[in-house]
């Protein structure tokens, strides 16, 4: 996937718009996302391994919500599925679905940094 397929440009631009074009604050949000998401990704995998469905549900829920707000829609959809598995206790399905989660997240993180970089260079 190219960065433009990983991050939905319209959603990303909408977020910046909602922030009144404050790229610095957008940057803070992105940094916070990048700082907190690895923990959530790891949390999801640990919860599946430990058979802890509620923790899986919550971690996937947060990661879905954060990812969706930046326009990482495909990743958010994957997280939403995991959240649903956590809710229903379908841990075996969750295990399958989460196999490549860290790799997908790494792509999202890279794409997001690229989008932020572009936004910073664009005239306000």
């Amino acid at each position, binding site marked *: 996937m190219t960065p433009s397929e990983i991050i939905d440009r319209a959603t990303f631009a909408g977020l910046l718009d909602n922030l009144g074009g404050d790229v610095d604050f957008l940057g803070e949000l992105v940094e916070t996302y990048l700082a907190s998401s690895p923990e959530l990704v790891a949390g999801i995998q640990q919860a599946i391994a430990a058979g802890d469905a509620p*923790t899986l549900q919550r971690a996937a829920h947060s990661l879905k919500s954060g990812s969706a707000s930046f326009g990482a829609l495909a990743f958010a959809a994957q997280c939403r599925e995991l959240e649903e598995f956590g809710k229903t206790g379908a841990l075996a399905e969750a295990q399958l679905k989460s196999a490549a989660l860290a790799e997908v997240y790494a792509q999202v993180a890279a794409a997001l940094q690229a989008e932020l970089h572009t936004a910073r260079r664009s005239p306000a």
Partner: protein
Amino acid sequence: MMEIKGRILVVDDYVLNRMQLKRALETQGHTVALAEDGRQALEMLNAGDYDLVLLDILMPEIDGFEVLTRLKNDPARRDLPVIVISALDEMENVVRCIGMGAEDFLPKPFDPLLLRARIGACLEKKRLRDQEVEYLQQVARVTAAAAAMEAGDFTPDSLDDVAARPDELGQLGRVFQRMAQEVVAREQALKQQVHDLRIQVDEARKASQVAEITESDYFQQLQSRVGDLRKILDT
């Protein structure tokens, strides 16, 4: 109409949500406090005074349902409005929260215009309810003042804030207060009068008037015969 600004408690365990909501709400002029989970939220609600709570549902340990239940079971906080934060795919949770007494819900991702509209409507409703509650309380104060007036222990300044209202109730409060003050003043003046009531008798003038009577021929004659007259009646 000027938008109402409120003190808002945001409860969400996800840092990104807290950041975004804080930023959006502060941009709209509200005062924002943040709680990272249900336990912290309950502590802050006990310690502080808020106009509105923005409440996430999925949280570890004490979740949004639990916070909502505790708020609605607390008579002092039952009327504090709660807006549930929710993704659009969790409508069954939203429905459950509204059933438990939540005022409204706010979908994620956050839209500033929708946020402004929902928060504004909620605060306006709360303001009206607060006014209604205050109105009823002040009506009760006037009736209590009337009872105190009857019992004689009315304190005039007990209606100061009712009298300060610009509406008809304020008018009633002012008129009542003024009349009560007049009555109290009159009673105090009377009490003072009695306190000062030295039964003043001009002794010299009294003596001269007594003398005028007792020196009369009729009185002298009567006095000399009074023993005989009584005998007529008593024997």
